[in-house]
């Protein structure tokens, strides 16, 4: 193995490979930071260029774009409350409050470091865990998937803020909007117009819900401090802050690796799962959602941790886990390589070269992130009265470019108004977001499982994986009910005491 690794190292350490990775990471970071432009778009746009490159250089370019865009999504999420990619949606929750408090640079640094660590751990796992993880991933069928999604949805309880009831209302709204369009059996639901038959796009909904309410709030209420730029305060990440988040970074990276290896889950779910776990276990759990740096560490380590891991089912089994790895599968085949078990037998040198190249890309990600963070932080200096309207226009162009659809722009604007009304009524937006992303996976896998089992509910309890997630779900629901009960009792006691 070591001889092959040495040969692979020699094959990778060439100028074209380094240039491809460098260009890919930079382009990815910039594309990811633009709202509406996604990693999928970046990888698809780069595909024609790979015709002229060697197989390893091509794949390295595409992987670099994927990683760069995943990190880039966090930049706009932190600085302008606009998740550039769906996987960065969780980063908004703590990143933007930090930026508002003049700590945008600190938040970006934490996002970068945790992304790089998550990415590195994910890359290492490619070497040692590709085969076992791929075998595990094969055991995750619709019932296990359903239980995993049910467990992930329990995060709603921990991010509902002051009222669990309003959090559940928000989640129900997200679950309901996720049902718009065609279902898995071809039935149309809530297709009020022809455009709605294809459902509501994830990116317009997320960006509308998070980015636009700030603008509408500014136009309606005109707070006096909007003419000022955001404060630029302490931007250095201290060692104690890093130490305080290290557990969440490693946990998030592992969650990213495991969930990323399961086809169909992707970085968004991994980020939410990791965020939820960090909030449950952190001593600063109560501060999550208000500008807690550990929250950024948890979500960013997980979404970048999932990036490398999505290559595991692709390389080991030939199964693309998401659209991006689907495009990469195409790139492999264009160059005469067929991912799957035979790839490890017939083209082991190429596989190792790819692994080593991907390891290098973590370093490039750090360099590109560090170099761009300073420039992006300057966005904070633009007064809100100039910045927020420009963000809307940027979002309008970005959203339109996804599918050349005016309907997507309408969805963006309508969701902005919905988000503003939710803000007025104190209904938290975060549970909506999670429910909207996880809802379709939850429902599809439930219906698939019941179809397979011919309506027998026992299908959900046939494997130890399902049982494990079921037990965790019950445990967290019980703990949440107990916590709410205690809160209600203490409030009642306080009211009684003040009345007497």
């Amino acid at each position: 193995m070591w001889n092959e690794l040495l040969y692979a190292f020699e094959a990778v350490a060439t100028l074209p490979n380094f240039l491809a990775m460098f260009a890919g990471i930079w382009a990815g970071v910039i594309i990811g930071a633009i709202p509406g432009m996604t990693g999928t778009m970046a990888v698809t746009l780069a595909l024609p260029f790979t015709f002229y490159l060697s197989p390893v250089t091509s794949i390295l370019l595409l992987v670099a774009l994927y990683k760069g865009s995943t990190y880039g999504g966090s930049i706009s999420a932190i600085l302008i409350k606009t998740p550039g990619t769906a996987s960065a949606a969780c980063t908004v929750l703590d990143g933007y409050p930090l930026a508002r408090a003049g700590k945008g640079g600190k938040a970006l640094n934490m996002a970068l470091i945790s992304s790089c660590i998550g990415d590195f751990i994910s890359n290492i796992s490619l070497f040692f865990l590709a085969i076992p993880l791929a075998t595990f991933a094969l055991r995750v069928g619709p019932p296990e998937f359903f239980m995993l999604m049910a467990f992930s949805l329990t995060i709603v309880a921990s991010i509902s803020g002051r009222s669990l009831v309003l959090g559940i209302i928000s989640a129900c709204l997200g679950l309901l909007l996720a049902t718009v369009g065609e279902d898995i059996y071809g039935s149309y639901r809530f297709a009020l117009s022809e455009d709605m038959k294809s459902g509501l796009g994830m990116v317009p909904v997320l960006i509308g819900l998070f980015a636009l309410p700030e603008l509408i709030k500014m136009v309606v209420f005109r707070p006096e401090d909007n003419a000022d730029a955001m404060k630029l305060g302490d931007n250095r990440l201290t060692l104690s802050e890093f130490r305080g988040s290290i557990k969440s970074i490693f946990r998030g990276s592992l969650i990213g690796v495991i969930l990323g290896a399961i086809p169909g889950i992707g970085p968004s779910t991994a980020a939410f799962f990791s965020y939820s776990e960090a909030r449950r276990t952190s001593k600063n759990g109560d501060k999550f959602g208000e500008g807690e740096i550990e929250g950024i560490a948890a979500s960013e380590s997980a979404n970048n941790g999932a990036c490398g891991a999505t290559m595991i089912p692709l390389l080991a089994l030939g199964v693309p886990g998401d659209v991006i790895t689907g495009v990469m599968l195409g790139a492999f085949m264009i160059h005469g390589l067929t991912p799957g078990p035979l790839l490890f037998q017939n083209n082991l040198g190429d596989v190792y070269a790819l692994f080593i190249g991907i390891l290098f890309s973590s370093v490039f990600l750090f360099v590109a992130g560090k170099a761009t963070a300073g420039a992006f932080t300057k966005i904070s200096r633009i007064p809100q009265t100039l910045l927020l309207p420009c963000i809307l226009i940027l979002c309008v162009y970005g959203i339109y470019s996804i599918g050349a659809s005016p309907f997507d722009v309408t969805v963006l604007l309508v969701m902005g108004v919905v988000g503003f009304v939710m803000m007025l009524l104190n209904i938290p937006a975060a549970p909506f977001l999670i429910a909207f992303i996880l809802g379709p996976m939850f429902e599809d896998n439930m219906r698939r499982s019941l179809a397979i089992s011919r309506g027998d509910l026992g299908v959900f309890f046939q494997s130890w994986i399902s049982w494990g997630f079921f037990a965790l779900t019950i445990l967290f629901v019980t703990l949440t009910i107990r916590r709410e009960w205690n809160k209600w009792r203490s409030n009642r006691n306080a009211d009684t005491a003040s009345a007497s």
Partner: protein
Amino acid sequence: MNQNRDFYAGLVATVFFAVILFVLIPIYVKVPSFIPGFAPPPDMWPRVVAIVGLVMGVLALVLSYPKMREASRNQVEGLGNRILGNKTHLMRFGAVLILFAAFVYGMPLIGFVPATVLLLGVLFIMTGNFERKFWMIGLSIIFPVLLYLLFTKVTHTPFPEGKLLSFSLSDLVTL
């Protein structure tokens, strides 16, 4: 009794989910006559979600009652009165809705770039801060044009030219 935010959130949620459950699902979620295997029908999940949402809406209404009673005792002004009392805010919100609707319906007519230029210009005016007039005028023209160039060159997105503009251009070509 003085209504608070929880009351209005509960009221909005109750009405919204009731409309979904009793009006929209029966009309807009078609259940096919044949469903393969034993798969649950397509209306099952939306119904479950709408019922949970409706129950939570009612619960929010019920839970807001003690707080409202206390606020009423302390003579705190209700949220509804505060919002309706400030008509300027309502008018500005109405103006935002009109602006967004005008953009959506006007964009196919006048074209994407002119529509975004107008949208940005009007939004700058609506912020009510005119300290940086030159920046506002410059940005409202240059920024949309730069984005148009970026997206047409990089992603080759075909932005709508607008029926009015294409009509006049085709006229010129014909002449």
